């Protein structure tokens, strides 16, 4: 028999997670599981701790509480650069509930906001007080997330795009985020991340290596575009085949890097 257990703090919720239970934030994914039979699910674990919804900016280090919703981010006047990534998550009803924490666990083809966090090189802060780089976290996605934090990008160095087939919303064929290092004239330490191109959002190291020292123009980024899908086996699903994702990835990467509309 399913039960719902609600705790005042995240730490208490963490202590009471047991086999057969699931932690719930906005519930946009957990509730679908419950509605469709919740086979094997014994308990939904929640917390009423409202501090998990905070958004802070301390000297350029931004912290998003795990319960901050996509709409909270869109409504925040100093987080414009994250607007396209937050807007990429479903329609208005989804965005009013979908949390940053839940997005880190969303299965393919979801996780669009997490792609942005990867390119921002975020740290994931867990309920036990530990913090891990997001890339490490995504390898096994375990523990209860308290918040994520990252350095505010300079100027227009951060870019995000979601490529879908159903407008204005719909799941991703792919999403791409890039943080283009800040050396004048050439690229250095660029970070590029993909969503819906593997089992979880990922950094694209081959592209990052090819961008090192490159000029940000069609000629300069040519070898990065050639490496756009190096070593990747994108999934096939009802939106796109693996072949299709590989074919379109270089085009969308080029458009993102050069700021082209088409």
């Amino acid at each position: 028999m399913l039960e719902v257990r609600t705790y005042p703090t995240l730490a208490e919720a963490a202590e009471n997670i047991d086999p057969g239970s699931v932690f719930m934030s906005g519930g946009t994914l957990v509730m679908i599981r419950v509605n469709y039979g919740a086979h094997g699910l014994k308990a939904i674990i929640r917390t009423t701790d409202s501090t998990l919804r905070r958004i802070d900016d301390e000297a350029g280090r931004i912290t998003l509480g795990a319960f901050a919703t996509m709409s909270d981010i869109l409504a925040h006047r100093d987080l414009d650069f994250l607007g396209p990534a937050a807007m990429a998550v479903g329609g208005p009803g989804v965005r009013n509930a979908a949390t940053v924490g839940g997005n880190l666990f969303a299965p393919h083809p979801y996780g669009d906001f997490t792609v942005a966090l990867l390119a921002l090189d975020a740290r994931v802060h867990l309920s036990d007080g530990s913090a891990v780089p997001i890339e490490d976290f995504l390898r096994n996605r375990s523990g209860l997330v308290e918040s994520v934090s990252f350095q505010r990008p300079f100027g227009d160095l951060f870019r995000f795009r979601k490529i879908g087939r159903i407008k204005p919303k719909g799941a991703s064929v792919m999403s791409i985020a890039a943080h283009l290092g800040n050396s004048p004239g050439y690229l250095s330490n660029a970070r590029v991340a993909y969503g819906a191109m593997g089992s979880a959002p990922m950094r694209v190291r081959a592209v990052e290596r090819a961008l090192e020292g490159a000029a940000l123009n069609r000629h300069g980024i040519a070898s990065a575009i050639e490496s756009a899908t190096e070593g990747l086996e994108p999934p096939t699903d009802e939106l796109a085949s693996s072949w299709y994702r590989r074919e379109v990835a270089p085009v969308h990467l080029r458009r993102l890097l050069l700021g082209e509309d088409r």
Partner: protein
Amino acid sequence: MMKKTPVTFTLNGRPTAAFADPGENLLDFLRRGVGDMTPKYGCGQGTCGACTVLIDNEPHLACITLAESAADREIRTADCLSDGPSLDPLQNSFIEHFAAQCGYCTPGMLMAARALLERNPNPRREEVIDAIAGNICRCTGYEPIVDAILDASRSYRRSAI
């Protein structure tokens, strides 16, 4: 015996209390537990928008909202729009623009539109399209719905003055 949880909240301005089953979603809770049949069941997975209700003035998908999370919050359904025979400007506009055919999507559309017009009584066409992006209509082709919302926005602007 299934353990039920008491949930108290405001429904369309009235203090309301009912018991929720464990894991029950807000849509079933409102329809079966409270008796408000205006939000509709379409998919149970957040994709159709037929169950859209306002929670603290924002549109939410009742089918993927845990009923217990509505505790102490203000819920509004399409039932709040009319006062007896007197309809909301949005409802009148839907009738005038033939924006409801089978009508199944209409309560959800109306609530998504209502949230938009309360926040922004002067929306651009693209903003209307974004506001109803989570609501599927299989009949109208959307254009009459968008026109109806834009038309109703004039009344909302007048009442905002």
